[in-house]
């Protein structure tokens, strides 16, 4: 390194031992008069020198270990360890003039010697890439296919299991039982469309041909309740099964209890309303049907865009003689329903209701023209 390029040294460094030590260190180096061997040897070396092959990253021979932290650690060690520094120097230093002279006269430096050795080395065994590669390729393909097949099997198994579990859940079974034989106007959560078949309605009587799905669902629900008799989810499903079996009293008892003790949800209110409405329809109880409408109104407040809530609410409103409210609710229902068949039923019910209203208006109009008509007869329906 060029001496002139060094920063100016302090003039009175001799007075300060530390400054003096620094200047001596640099002067010795700059004059190529290195510190004695004891000085070059480590003050920090604790004898944990890297093994020979561990120096490879520093010499650029091992890319795998050439991260910055490792390189810094090796450099730091060499900076403090005289032996390792000497070893590095031996490996990296350019040949001196004397060494160059010695190397030049070596037989190994001759072209002839190198040519003969090259011929020998060229004949040394070569790693057979292709056959091994093909074998490995085949093996890896087999592993790949086997692994893929196993993964696919597991995936299919898992999907099938979840599909089967979902398809055979009590909720699904109850919904299918409803769709298989819809015996009342109100809708059940999760159930697909089905035409109402009032002929199979047994109005609280015993069921002659109970759906196998309903029986299956009931069995599963009961098994669950044996383990968790207070579980609100299974209790709600049990009540839903009771409604389908037209056991309205136990259904209402369960659902009222749940509404009193558990967080009120639109689903619970819908089920409770169905139980009250169907009991009211079967017994002629006005009170039950009023309760049903109250529950559905509360459900409507909780889930104003739920088509199932709106459908049932409109049906009960119509039943309660609230024709104008029912028309408005049907119109709201038609905005949210996506199932075309349920949508068609909604349209049909609305159309029928509007026709009734029109007929009523026509009738009222005629009655209004009659001079003896009482004013009480002009009172609107809703």
């Amino acid at each position, binding site marked *: 390194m060029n001496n002139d390029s060094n920063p100016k040294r302090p003039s009175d460094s001799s007075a300060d031992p530390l400054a003096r030590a620094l200047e001596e260190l640099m002067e010795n180096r700059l004059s190529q008069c290195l510190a004695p061997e004891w000085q070059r040897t480590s003050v920090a070396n604790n004898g944990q020198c890297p093994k020979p092959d561990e120096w490879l990253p520093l010499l650029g021979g091992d890319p795998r270990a050439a991260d910055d932290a490792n390189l810094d650690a090796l450099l730091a060690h060499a900076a403090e360890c005289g032996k390792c520094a000497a070893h590095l120097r031996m490996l990296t230093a350019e040949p001196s003039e004397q060494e160059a002279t010695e190397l030049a006269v070596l037989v190994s430096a001759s072209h002839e010697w190198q040519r003969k050795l090259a011929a020998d080395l060229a004949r040394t065994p070569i790693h057979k*890439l292709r056959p091994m590669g093909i074998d490995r390729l085949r093996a890896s393909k087999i592993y790949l296919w086997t692994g893929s097949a196993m993964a696919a099997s597991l995936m299919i198994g898992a999907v099938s299991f979840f599909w089967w579990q979902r398809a055979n859940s009590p909720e699904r079974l109850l919904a299918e039982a409803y769709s298989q034989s819809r015996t009342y106007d109100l809708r059940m959560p999760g159930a697909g469309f089905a035409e109402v078949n009032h002929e199979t309605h047994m109005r609280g009587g015993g069921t002659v041909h109970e759906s196998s799905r309903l029986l299956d669902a009931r069995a599963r629900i009961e098994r669950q309740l044996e383990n968790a008799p207070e579980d609100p989810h299974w209790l709600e499903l049990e009540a839903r099964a009771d409604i389908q079996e037209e056991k309205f009293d136990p259904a209402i008892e369960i659902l009222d209890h749940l509404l009193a003790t558990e967080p009120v949800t639109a689903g619970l209110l819908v089920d409770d309303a169905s139980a009250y409405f169907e009991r009211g329809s079967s017994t002629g109880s006005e009170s039950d049907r009023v309760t049903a409408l109250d529950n559905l109104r509360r459900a409507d407040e909780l889930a104003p865009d739920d088509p199932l809530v709106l459908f049932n609410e409109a049906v009960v409103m119509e039943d309660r003689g609230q024709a104008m409210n029912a028309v408005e609710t049907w119109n709201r229902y038609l905005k949210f329903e996506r199932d075309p068949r349920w949508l068609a039923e909604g349209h049909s019910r609305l159309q029928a209701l509007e026709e009734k209203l029109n007929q009523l208006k026509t009738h009222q109009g005629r009655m209004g023209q009659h001079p003896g008509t009482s004013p009480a007869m002009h009172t609107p329906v809703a």
Partner: protein
Amino acid sequence: MEELRTSVNDLAKACARSADAAEWAEFLRRCTPLASLVALRVSRSWVSFSSPATVNDIVQEIFMKLCEQERRILREFEPRGEDSFLGLLRMVSASVANDYFRRTHSAKRGGKVVTMALAEEGAPGPSASVLPTAGLEQQILLAQLDQKLRSAPEVICERDRALFWLYYRQGLTAEEIAGLAGAGLTPKGVESALRRVAKWLRGEVERQKSENPAESG
């Protein structure tokens, strides 16, 4: 010539699977000087005078080593930077040369070959117990300088500190330090870093002296 344009890394990769003597001859032409130099230096660390024949034998063993196990070393070589194969060749050469002398020394004593760690090689270093008194004081002062270098890692990073001591204490030249791929610097870069560290260290020593004039006397 085509060979002149081929890097030593590419030659090494080609020779891993080549049966072409001409390709190998070019590889030897490029690599023999380095292998011979390392062989010569290791020889000197073991014996006061190493015969040219011994060095030649070692050089031959170095290249045979590269071809062991179906040329495993060449096959597994992964280039990292320009002529990085030469770094690997240095290490292989030193290892083969040391093994050569361990084997011959062991044979003379009738024992088995013993692989020694690098720290055990070469002449034994002085221990602290033989340091002269003046040397002990010097060591303390150097340790203080080192402490200063370590005290400002945001200014003097670990690599700068290592370069400083490699140059000023261990006596490596800027070219030799730059020859270490891990340093990541050219000789000019090493010199620049050294100037910066030296300037900063002098400033620190000066500052300490002005802040504590009583201690500095």
